[in-house]
């Protein structure tokens, strides 16, 4: 087979940081190539160069053997390269067809003369035809803000197909999909391949790689560490290449004592709406016992973010009550929640947990900056604050270049450790941990997991919200699954199968599952 797209010694540097180091990639015509690697391995940088969003520091890109220079996405599209980004680049207030034709609008013609006005009828007709040709489920005149995540992704794909691309790059396409939607996507991509397209998929989910790929390239720390054909490899081998050593997430989760019967945290009929008035958390009721880790699983975007915001005082409920330690804490503000003994590891580290442009010590006291040990009569005691910072650095093994620098200079794992140190050192009774290891290196993941278990083993309570299923399953004592803002099932992580979890995450509850089996 001929090469469709090749890179020769492609290198990208950001100041002193080498994101891509002499990458040689070779994608054949009409194949599905998966590019795998951990978060931060440099996959997205490479793809952004192929799509013209970034320019290489050195090296060449060849399409069908001819060297091309891609200065912008326009060049890339002109050369037949299209990209579906991980975070969709859609305009919510516009319709499906307007988004697909964005930048390629069809204008009305009057008597052979071009007018500046848009021909909406013709646009809708063309998009509907495109949808039919590709057997996709979409309505051309729906607004983007009204359609599902899977639907939005299909719009992104159509946007590229409309531009007649030969090569389709998808960046982490399955991160936001349910297992069932993932299967649909895989079918769609295989169908596109049959029609002659070349497809590049960036992912770190190995199960999907094995289902989808013809060939696989593994990237680690900006370098290619392996090129294999799917038929010659296994999930385990790929994982090994990705991290450079055998890792199966093994934290020793042996309980040392029984879960107590005392109820520490209890939510009743918790409900809230998003900015558009749509109910995103509906009638959620659950309780957590003292000394227990409750995991909340689910595909991203099923109300977990809003639930966390509700629990951490960043959002108000429209209905329902929350009790903690015997007190009604419904709609309390974050300050009061922390004072009552709830530690919070927020979902987005740099949005809610830390302030990038403030120093490490400033970040070490955030949330507890009114406590008497650091703040007397409204004035800070710089010495005790710095002592606190140094203590955290030592106890939580935080590695940093400049102790007086801003927290933005720390790596993801070390920044996350600052949050963990801060929240755990306040000796809370309950820890609400949301995506505690997202975008964190393997070493730190292990450390953070151990800290959470240690905290529980001291008799404390944890609510763990994560979209990383393996994390939920290995840490939790009990798991509830969220689907469309509701609880679709409760399981014990030791007893449930991955398949059953997948169905729960797709909103198919236990009874329905049993029902299916009987038939």
């Amino acid at each position, binding site marked *: 087979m001929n090469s469709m797209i090749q890179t020769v010694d492609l290198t990208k540097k950001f100041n002193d940081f080498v994101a891509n180091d002499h990458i040689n990639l070779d994608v054949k015509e009409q194949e599905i190539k998966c590019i795998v690697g951990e978060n931060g391995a440099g996959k997205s940088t490479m793809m952004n160069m192929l*799509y013209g*969003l970034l320019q290489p520091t050195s090296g060449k890109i060849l399409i069908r053997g001819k060297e091309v220079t891609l200065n912008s*996405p326009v*060049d890339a599209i002109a050369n037949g390269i299209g990209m579906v*980004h991980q975070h969709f*680049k859609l305009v919510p207030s*516009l319709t499906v067809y307007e988004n697909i034709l964005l930048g390629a609008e069809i204008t009305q013609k009057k008597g052979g003369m071009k007018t500046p*006005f848009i021909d909406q009828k013709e646009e809708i007709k063309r998009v509907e035809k495109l949808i039919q040709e590709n057997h996709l489920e979409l309505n051309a005149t729906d607004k983007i803000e009204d359609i599902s995540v899977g639907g939005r992704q299909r719009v992104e794909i159509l946007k590229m197909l409309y531009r007649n691309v030969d090569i389709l790059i998808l960046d982490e396409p399955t991160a936001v999909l349910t297992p069932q939607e993932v299967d649909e996507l895989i079918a769609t991509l295989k169908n596109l391949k049959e029609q002659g397209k070349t497809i590049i998929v960036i992912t770190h989910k190995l199960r999907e790689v094995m289902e989808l790929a013809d060939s696989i390239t593994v990237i680690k720390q900006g370098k290619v560490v392996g090129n294999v054909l799917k038929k010659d490899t296994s999930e385990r081998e790929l994982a090994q290449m990705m991290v450079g050593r055998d890792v199966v997430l093994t934290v020793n989760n042996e309980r040392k004592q029984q879960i107590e019967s005392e109820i520490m945290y209890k939510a009743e009929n918790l409900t809230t709406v998003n900015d558009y008035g749509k109910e995103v958390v509906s009638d959620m009721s659950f309780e957590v016992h003292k000394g227990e880790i409750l995991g909340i699983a689910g595909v991203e975007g099923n109300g977990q973010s809003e639930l966390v915001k509700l629990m951490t005082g*960043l*959002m108000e409920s429209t209905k329902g009550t929350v009790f903690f330690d015997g007190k009604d804490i419904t709609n309390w503000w974050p300050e009061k929640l922390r004072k009552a003994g709830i530690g919070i590891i927020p979902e987005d580290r740099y949005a809610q947990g830390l302030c990038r442009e403030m120093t490490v010590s400033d970040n070490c006291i955030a949330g507890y900056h009114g406590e008497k040990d650091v703040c007397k009569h409204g004035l800070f005691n710089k010495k005790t604050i710095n002592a606190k910072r140094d203590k955290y650095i030592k106890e939580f093994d935080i590695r940093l270049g400049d102790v007086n620098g801003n927290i933005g200079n720390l790596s993801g794992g070390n920044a996350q450790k600052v949050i963990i140190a801060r929240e755990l050192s306040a000796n809370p009774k309950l820890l609400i941990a949301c995506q505690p290891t997202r975008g964190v290196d393997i070493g730190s993941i292990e450390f953070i997991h151990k800290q959470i278990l240690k905290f529980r083993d001291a008799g404390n309570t944890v609510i763990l919200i994560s979209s990383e299923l393996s994390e939920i399953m290995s840490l939790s004592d009990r798991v509830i699954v969220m689907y469309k803002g509701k609880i679709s099932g409760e399981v014990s992580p030791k007893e449930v199968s991955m398949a059953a979890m997948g169905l729960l995450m797709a909103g198919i509850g236990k009874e329905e599952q049993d029902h299916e089996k009987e038939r």
Partner: protein
Amino acid sequence: MELLNSILYDTVYHSAPIILCVIGGIFAYKANVLNIALEGMMLNGAFISVLVEYLTGSVALAVIAAIVTTLLWGLVFSFLGITCNGNVIVIGLGINLIVPAIAKFVLKVMELANISLQDVGVADFKINIPGIKSIPLIGGIVSGHPVITYLAFIGIAAAAILMYKTKFGIYVRVVGENEDSAISLGLKTQKYKYIAVLIGAFCCALAGINLSMERMAMFTSDMTAGRGFIAIAAIYCGQGKPVQSSLYAILFGVARSLAVNLSVYAGPAAGMFDTIPYIIMVAVLAVVSFMKFKDVKVRGYKFD
């Protein structure tokens, strides 16, 4: 009856410059570059048009000079704010300070307190529409305004079409709503921001000409009197939608017209009528914003 007629005529009269500022400002607002230099740009249009007419005696030259110089301010704003990525609010304030300073400086150099045009009068600019003029009541209100006043009202429709029916309108909205989306398709986002700001500058120039030359045939350095800021408030109230925002501009016209016409009866308290439009706008803004955010459950604030 005569009072009502006069109130309605004045409403049209006072609305026009604000409408122009509004339709000039909405594109920048939608493109997410808040242009608070409307005030300064309008004053520039007012100043340059009267100055050039005074010096050359040519109305055409005056209009062209006013438009060109205001567009230059638009370029300064865009270059510093978009290309150099400066803080647009501060840039806007800067322009709002410099323009009156320049006007005063020039007046001082010319040793004048203000410029009054001798060779053209307000009456020269008025257009009496033959058919409509004879219709009772409506004729008196619709007819007899200067050209740009009519342009302002036509401009509302033009802005609505430009915003919703053309590529440019879609692109401006996309740039403001999801810039990444525009970039990923290779749209030159900076270009659309520049054009949005320049449309604003163009409209402000017209508003300024309307204010000084057409309506008064004179220039004083404080004649814009916050109309640019009123326009910004109107844009906020109407959320950048051409028709709604213009309606808020007309609301100000009504208030101003009431203040002017009723001052005859109010005696010494006349001055207080001038505060009415400002208070109405604050109240409207508060209600609009309250309605918009009353069901939002997420705690926190957006800072511009």
